């Protein structure tokens, strides 16, 4: 058991290390001198040389990587050039809208996807199955900005049920915030439900073919109990895995929806940073986003192993 955890932990750390190297290389490879960008066009050559030394930018790259990593581990992700505040603060400010949106969206995706997937699996091959599968495929083909703009026109502009954009006033209560997030969450949720439908269907089909399901049926239990109580419970584990990973991917992955609806999310932050050449932010945000995914992945793996009796150490 312990060896299992340790080996998984080792794997996670290895991946994190590679992520750190990737992020570092990516942002350093960017064109433009970060120090001139930082100081602006008022800087003299002396100023630039001095700041370079201060920041350790005159050292060879591996050394710079070491300095950067050391700072990251201490929790210092650097200072944003444009926003003039620590990157960690910029990210923290955006944590709330991003997390709420991700959770709401995944809740909607699950609410649509799981029931449809179950029905699809149970009535496999029927018209309903083909319909749901087709709809799922359609959902995976729709660009999120298109759905976002269309829904915004219908529900926010024409009907006025939701605010057109933004995350609510500076002092808005939670209810107002959630209201502002509803339409974007519906967009993300519907698009992601496609994946959930297909995954649930596949998972249910797998489980329904298993021996113990046949046993339950032969015991004379009503079909509904077999499906909802026995099969679903087992099929649910991988489904929840996918849901968890989907939440992780939406941290930053919801960038297009955030842009359409003007939400101050993490994805949006990265895009603005890219357009403004704010390299510390790009670097810090990418690192945090990937790290969150790796950590969630690791936790799920661990839980999975602990919960599923079939996994042997």
């Amino acid at each position, binding site marked *: 058991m312990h060896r299992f955890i340790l080996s998984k932990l080792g794997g996670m750390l290895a991946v994190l290390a590679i992520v750190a190297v990737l992020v570092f290389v990516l942002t350093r490879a960017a064109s433009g001198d970060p120090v001139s960008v930082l100081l602006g066009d008022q800087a003299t050559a002396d100023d630039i040389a001095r700041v370079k030394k201060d920041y350790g930018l005159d050292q060879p790259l591996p050394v710079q990587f070491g300095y950067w990593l050391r700072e990251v581990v201490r929790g210092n992700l650097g200072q944003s050039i444009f926003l003039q505040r620590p990157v960690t603060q910029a990210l923290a400010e955006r944590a709330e809208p991003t997390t709420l949106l991700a959770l709401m969206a995944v809740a909607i995706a699950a609410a649509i996807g799981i029931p449809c997937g179950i029905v699809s699996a149970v009535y496999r091959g029927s018209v309903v199955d083909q319909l749901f599968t087709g709809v799922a495929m359609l959902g995976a083909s729709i660009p999120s900005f298109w759905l976002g703009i269309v829904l915004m026109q219908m529900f926010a*502009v024409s009907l006025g049920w*939701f*605010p057109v*954009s933004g995350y609510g006033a500076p002092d*808005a209560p939670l209810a*107002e915030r959630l209201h502002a997030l509803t339409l974007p969450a519906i967009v993300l949720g519907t698009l992601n439900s496609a994946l959930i439908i297909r995954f649930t269907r596949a998972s249910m089909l797998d489980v329904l073919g298993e021996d113990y399901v046949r046993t339950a049926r032969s015991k004379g239990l009503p079909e509904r109990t077999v499906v909802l*109580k026995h099969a679903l419970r087992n099929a649910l584990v991988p489904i929840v895995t996918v849901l968890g990973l989907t939440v992780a991917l939406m941290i930053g992955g919801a960038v297009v929806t955030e842009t359409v609806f003007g939400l101050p999310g993490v994805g949006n932050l990265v895009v603005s940073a890219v357009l403004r050449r704010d390299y510390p932010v790009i670097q810090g945000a990418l690192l945090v986003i990937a790290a969150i995914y790796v950590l969630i992945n690791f936790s799920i793996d661990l839980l999975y192993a602990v919960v599923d009796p079939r996994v042997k150490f």
Partner: protein
Amino acid sequence: MPLATPRRDFLQRPLAWALAACLIGAGGPTFAQGPRPYATLAMVAEPQTLDPMASTADLVGTIMQHVYEPLYTFDAKWNVVPMLAESLPKISADGKTYGISLRKGVMLHSGRELNADDVVASLQRWMDTSPRGKAVGKELESIKAKGPLEVELVLKGPYAPLVAQLALPSGMAAIMAKESIASPLKEFVGTGPYRFKERKPDQYVLLTRFDKYSARKEPASGYGGKREALIEELRFVPVPSANTRVEGALAGQYDYADLLPVEALPRLEKASGKTLPIMTPSFGFPYLVLNTKEGVAANQALRRALQTAIGEGEMLAAGFGDTRFFTAEGNHFPKNSPFYSAAGTEQYNQRNAKQAKELAEKAGYKGEPIRVLTSRQYDFHYNMALLMAEQLKRAGFKVDLNVVDWATLVQRRNDSKLWDIYITHSGQFPEPMLSPPQLGDGAPGWWSSPAKQAALSAFNQQSDPAKRGALWGKVQQVVYDEVPYINVGKFASLSAKSPALDNYVPATWPFFWNAKIK
């Protein structure tokens, strides 16, 4: 038995959520209306900085003019009137010495009274940092405090636009508390009716009422006169998408929405009371700046060729759509202005691809790409740039369109290695020297030539307004000859306000003192 419980559970939860959603939905729109202590003002972008001297961007001036005040400002008729100064300056007979007396007892946000040292320090910073300030600084011999409330400026020679330069809100000669002066600015301590409260980049800038504000006594006119902060908190929110600004205005979400695309006017007019459109004709002019220092456009003959290929009329149509919203004319100042002149206007709106191609060949053009810098932040910039690119391509030019974020554009235009043409716009002012900044020194484009010096000195040294008007024609002719920038024409601006915003006076840099929420 086991099925009954889960089924009920299953149903209850979605029902509860649906109920909650309905309640939230019902409560939604009310958040934007009703008597409230704040106003939500939708702006075109996130301001690159809150330092009004460090940026010539209108947005920064619009926001920070509530926090900082200049010595002089403009009234409703664009006359210069005193603001922090007690009255108009005492000018010596030779026009070289200006004596400015400050008002007594003007409070700074930090709690003490304003004095001449603050003014001198602020103006020095302005002359070091801002392009217009630098141009003024060149004319200045010395500036010093002659007493606790007296400031004296000595010029090298007569310079007619001085007071107007001190008054313009963009690239403002803002008067700051001496101890707050730093680069970059960390604290914003001014004398304005609002004080800086909080900034969350990409979300909002909050300004709150300054209770100890020292107001002037004259009735309000334009930017001058008495200013009262009747709204407790001003919330400037960046809404970069013009579409979202329009939709937000139509939904009643904003008290003020700035610079809306003019095609939205019919929809705003039909908005059934949620919003009211405000149209300002002859609001400003878009202009192209050419890089005269480095690169392909440094060749004057090539710039003339580019000018020949361009059709300003078509560009304006692309940017603004309906002829109600723009005027295609080559004279930089309208017919009723003392600075009206038709000099050089035969070069305007030529759209002659064939001749442009010939001129380009003669200028030695070898097919190098013309790098055009633009942003999507102002939709008319982008559409005009796209159209211009087509016009240039028709004349055989190779065009490289760089579309960047506005903040990046403002940064990039300071580097002569990165662009050949960029597009921007300015308000239409009664004093020519106020805009574009290329008439000064050191502004992007780096226009500098003997003809420019000659024409501008003659223009600025002439203190008699009647004679000065006629001299603008000579400057305009040089602009058409040397093509450091191209004035594309004049356009009307469209913004919108909510019915709840009362007593709002439309202005080039929208201000919200004296306005109140009903």
